[in-house]
């Protein structure tokens, strides 16, 4: 449900960079979003298409790279990737212990953009 304000922020940042770089047309925008976020890719694109009408970013495609959820074992310090559905039942692949700490997976980042 919060895709709209997120998309507004994306557009604002993209247009700022487009203006300072004398861009004629933004073609593709690469985002990095953590898998812990509930954003729906399709809705971000739909809102973006709507909001970007008449701007340098009209027609640009958003490519979203989903950043993995990483946890670290509190016993042997091994870092490993998990899916959201497995967060409640973590087992360290190295030592088999279940005690672990979340490291990453909350990213909201614009990496770069392809422009003309």
């Amino acid at each position, binding site marked *: 449900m919060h895709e709209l304000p997120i998309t507004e922020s994306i557009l604002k*940042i993209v247009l700022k960079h487009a203006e300072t770089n004398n861009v004629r047309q933004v*073609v593709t925008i690469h985002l990095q979003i953590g898998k*812990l*976020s509930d954003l729906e890719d399709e809705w971000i694109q739909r809102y973006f298409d709507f909001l970007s009408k008449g701007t340098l970013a009209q027609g640009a495609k958003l490519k979203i790279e989903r950043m993995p959820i990483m946890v670290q074992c509190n016993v042997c310090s091994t870092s490993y990737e998990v899916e959201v559905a497995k967060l409640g039942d*973590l087992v360290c692949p190295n030592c088999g212990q279940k005690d672990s700490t979340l490291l990453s997976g909350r990213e909201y980042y614009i990496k770069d953009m392809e*422009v003309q």
Partner: protein
Amino acid sequence: MEDVRLIEVKEEILADNIKVAAGVRERLRNTKTMLLNLMSSPGSGKTSLILQTVANLKDSLRLGVIEADIDSTVDAEKVAARGIPAIQLRTGGFCHLDATMVTQGIDALSVSDLDLVIIENVGNLVCPAEFDTGAHKNVMILSVPEGDDKPLKYPLMFSICDLLLINKIDYLSLSDFDMSALRKRVMTLNPRIVIIEVSCKTGSGIEDWINWLKREVEYFKELK
């Protein structure tokens, strides 16, 4: 066809909100007013908890409340009826509060005369977790009837909170809620979180919550 070139952006999407939130925290640090963001699903007991808190603390702390609702003023009226300054922010369809909306709430309260401001965020376990409100402490409520699987469905919310209140423990005997499974799931997502079991209805555990809150406000006031 014109060549396509690559521009490095490298920016946080929510940078603007993060900046406004940091400003709110700094401003309230100067007035020694602790801001607490209370989040949960609809119906898990946010307003009941605030009313219990007001009843317990109104003689020892100067309190204010910022209520957020999609489109009603019911909650603020209940709090104001207890003699506590309360501001209702109508989010007009938005599912969460951001730091700019909270700034409006703070502007409307005389925060320099307050020790603690509680934000009652929009009832929702998804969106409020993504937006920093500028609060110094994030607290969430999970009520027993919602089930022990919620950390699996809304991991982000559980990972950003300083305190989890498990409300409606008077329902435990009627449900298959597994408290130890819940605690383990939550601690994996957030090993630093404090968990307190309460019932706003019977008053069980409320003293522990009030003591935690008093300690945090005292500690906050001593911070330089």
